[in-house]
């Protein structure tokens, strides 16, 4: 027990504790009753996630009376339960809950290991929640490492073909390279500042030092790997293709949330405007990443990789919001972080939606190449409709939530003197639009082998959840204000 254990610490760690406790329970149940049905483990995991959400609700209740937006600070400020951390925790829980409910097809192939599978999901979610709350370099790195291990293990656990294991290994290598870069960067920063406190970075670091530049570059590039954007984004395509869709929904969406949260904590909250190196590095990375993902999306021949590229493009666009903090061109507050957090939410939900539909297609025996889904509209109108909405949301097709998210991000970047980056983003949006529209046309225009199929093989819960996640792409257009309000509250405490 830590020496400064208190009620505050209990409350701050309650969301993570709920998840870790349930993960332990899930593993124990699996050990005691090895033959238990996978869906029992799934429901146990769901209870844990709902419990974590409830714990977040408790913290939120306390937060209502705190004008600063910082509910609990423990471990000398290293772990902060503020509105940003709460936003990330709630988003992670909701995304994990949705992903859990569509994992049926993935777990069906490994009934004996379903306890471990859901245990890993819970631990990974706890790691993401922790990343959102970390303001301390060492624990941030540890959380990132735990997340990577869990996500790689998840991919390896549910492998249905030899490529699954290989792609998980490649994910591990790429993730490790990214983490090594982050670690080396953090170590350099520690060497310069003699502190592992992210919040104190700006005060200590001389802004023009070469070592600082190297450190910041390594950290940003490493975390871009977690976010799933260039240069360390090959894993997204591999996981999307080789891991069953139910599991890849969780792996990719969680990694994007974690990468986004960590980047926000390190750059906006840590380095801030004082250390300006990241503010010229991130735009370059963003421009290359957006363009690379958008061009790649145009070339894809498989549905899963196309979705992966669109997720990557959408994640890269989030970097625009990250840059647009502080004051805008007219002296008013720039709302880039609101755009960033709402975009993060939309991306996560849309990712689950897209892979959820893909999971249903996999269960129905539909292949993964775009040729396999040619004329899908003839064969299963609901499947085609859901896939259309999911891919269109990720591709930024108007008027869906992905489009609205892009409008917010682009306008916030234009407001903070990143007009050229906004132009790149607009150009990339055209490319992703064309990729998405071309794919949608394939679903409807050309008849395939005309053998109708239904989504009946997928359990009703998974179908409902995947459908609801797709509908969220439409609903969030109307309900963007509540999401923006929450995102604005979440962004408020970042600096």
């Amino acid at each position, binding site marked *: 027990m830590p020496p400064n254990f208190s009620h505050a610490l209990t409350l701050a760690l309650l969301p993570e504790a709920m998840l870790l406790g349930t993960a332990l329970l899930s593993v124990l149940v699996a050990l005691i009753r090895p033959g238990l049905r996978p869906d029992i483990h799934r429901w146990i995991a769901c209870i844990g996630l709902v419990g974590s959400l409830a714990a977040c609700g408790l913290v939120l209740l306390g937060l209502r009376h705190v004008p600063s937006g910082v509910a609990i600070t423990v471990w000398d400020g290293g772990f902060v339960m503020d509105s940003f951390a709460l936003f990330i925790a709630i988003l992670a829980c909701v995304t994990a809950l949705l992903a859990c409910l569509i994992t049926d097809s993935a777990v069906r192939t490994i009934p004996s290991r379903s306890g471990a599978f859901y245990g890993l999901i819970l631990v990974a979610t706890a790691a993401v929640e922790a990343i959102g709350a970390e303001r301390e370099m060492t624990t941030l790195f540890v959380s990132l490492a735990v997340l990577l291990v869990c996500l790689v293990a998840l991919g390896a656990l549910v492998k249905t073909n030899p490529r699954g294991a290989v792609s998980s290994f490649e994910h591990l290598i790429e993730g490790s390279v990214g983490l090594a870069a982050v670690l080396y960067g953090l170590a350099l920063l520690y060497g310069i500042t003699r502190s592992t406190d992210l919040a104190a970075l700006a005060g200590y670091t001389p802004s023009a030092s070469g070592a600082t530049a190297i450190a910041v570059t390594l950290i940003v590039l490493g975390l871009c790997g977690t976010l799933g954007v260039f240069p360390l984004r090959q894993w997204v395509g591999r996981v999307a293709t080789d891991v069953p869709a139910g599991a890849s929904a969780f792996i990719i969406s969680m990694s994007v949330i974690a990468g986004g949260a960590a980047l926000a904590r390190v750059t906006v909250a840590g380095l801030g405007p004082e250390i300006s190196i990241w503010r010229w590095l991130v735009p370059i990375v963003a421009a290359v990443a957006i363009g690379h993902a958008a061009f790649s999306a145009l070339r894809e021949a498989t549905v899963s990789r196309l979705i992966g590229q669109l997720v990557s493009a959408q994640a890269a666009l989030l970097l625009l919001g990250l840059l647009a903090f502080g004051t*805008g*061109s*007219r002296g*008013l*507050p*720039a*709302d880039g972080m*609101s*755009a960033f957090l709402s975009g993060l939410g939309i991306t996560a939900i849309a990712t689950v939606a897209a892979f959820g539909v893909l999971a249903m297609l996999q269960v129905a025996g539909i292949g993964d190449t775009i040729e396999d889904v040619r004329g899908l*509209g*003839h064969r299963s*109108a609901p499947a085609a*409709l859901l896939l259309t909405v999911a891919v*269109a949301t990720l591709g930024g*097709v*108007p*008027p869906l939530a992905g*489009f*609205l998210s*892009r*409008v*917010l991000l*682009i*306008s*916030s970047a*234009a*407001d903070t003197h990143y007009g050229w980056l*906004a*132009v790149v983003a*607009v*150009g990339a*949006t*055209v490319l992703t*639009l*064309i990729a998405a*529209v*071309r794919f*949608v*046309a394939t679903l*409807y*225009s050309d008849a395939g082998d005309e053998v109708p199929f239904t989504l009946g093989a997928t359990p009703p819960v998974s179908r409902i959840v995947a459908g609801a996640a797709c509908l969220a792409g439409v609903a969030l*257009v109307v309900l*963007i*204000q509540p999401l*923006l*309000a929450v*995102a*604005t509250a979440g962004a408020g405490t970042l600096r």
Partner: protein
Amino acid sequence: MSVILSTIVWAPLLFALVALFLPERDAEQRSRVRTIGLAGAGASFFVTTFFAILGQIGLGQGGGLASAYQENHTWFWNFLFQAHYDLVADGITLPLLVVVTTIFGVAMFHSWKIHERVRLYVILVLLLETAVNGVLCSSDFVLFAAFWGLLLVPMYLLIRIWGGDGARRAAAWFAGFHALSLALIIATVAIIVVEAGAQSSDMGADLATFSVTAETVGFWLSFIAFAIAMAIFPVHTWMLEAQSKASAGVATILSGTMLLLGAYGMMRISLVVFPVPAHYYSFAIIGLAVVGAFWGSIGALRQDELRRFIGYMNVAQMSLVLLAIGAQTSVALVGAVLLLAGQGFGSAMLTLVSGAIEERTRTTSIRAMGGLVTQAPRLAGFWMVAAASVIGVPLLAGFTGDFMVFAGSFPEHRIATVLVMSSIIVTTGGLLWVANRVFFGPVRDQFARVHDVTLLDLTVLIPLVAAVVLFGVRAGAVVPVIANGVLEITTRITGG
């Protein structure tokens, strides 16, 4: 709170959702789907027409238009700008809404000629109508961009799935150009919300604090975006491809509504939001109009494909509208709106007639046709009415528009107006030449069994003829309504 405009915009989508759950296994079920589609388009049409008439009466009694047809809800506000679900129908919007809802009604009737994948066709047309009506009614830049983007997927699929040979390429052209147009509109919106200082994306907000650079860039971005949609020379190629390769029903929607939206956007955004550069660069706009008018009319003469010929006619017609936009006088702009209505109906009718001819003759080549008037006199009659409207024969929809555009443009740009006017002579010659080649001359043996219009053809063509005549005969009643809407544009241009 009035929900008239929401009804006009969303009714087609609601009916599309109903159609989504209907089966289409046999002819009866397919007919039911079409009926639902017709009901959706019809609902929008009747509400629009009813309130357009009421609007006209209100205007006659001294009432304003904009206040009567306005809905405003704040969409989101926790951001650097506020966005609104803001729908407005003023004097420009109302007549154009009548035009587009009529054309969609006609297109829905035309769906009885579609026998494959009827449900998808009906849903896409209704979705497209929602987008078109939304663009016309939006009074918020973000909402406008969202509806503008919504045009992309349904129109792309409609061209690609139900088009003939080469439809895939035509759809790709459309998608590429429309995506570019959307991107330019997004960039324009970003400039407006960031630079205008209104902290709102409301089109009615005070946007007077632009820097010269922002205003110039914003103007050209929006101008190019809408020029693409208008199919103005030199960004007209997508329309020629789509017009010639899409099915007749889809091409009707394309030439009757999509081009109209481009011109509407140019008037509503390029002129109103950026009046200074619009005035400064009016010579460039006029220059494009002159080149486009001749490019379109002379290009039409060189065509052998019937629908490509109509496509070039559209380019020439849109150049007349561009002339009015360049002139920026009240009379010219009122004429431009009337011309858009006339062009919409006329072009839609020409496209439908050409589709009917192609169905009967199994050819698209003008030179391969001839003597059809013997077998299909009514079809020839419809072509002549449409051609007369496009040319600007008195008492038809095109006449008042043509006259007002020239009357309004001449004092500002005399030489350009005379040049554009002279292009009408070429257009007239082209239309008469085609009529002569297709309908008159010796009867060809292979067309001996060609039949005249069917009941379905009459159902789709008669409403358009009625509209062309009504807009021509009752132009005096429509002009004050349009003038009411144009007043806002001219006030902004003159700095009032």
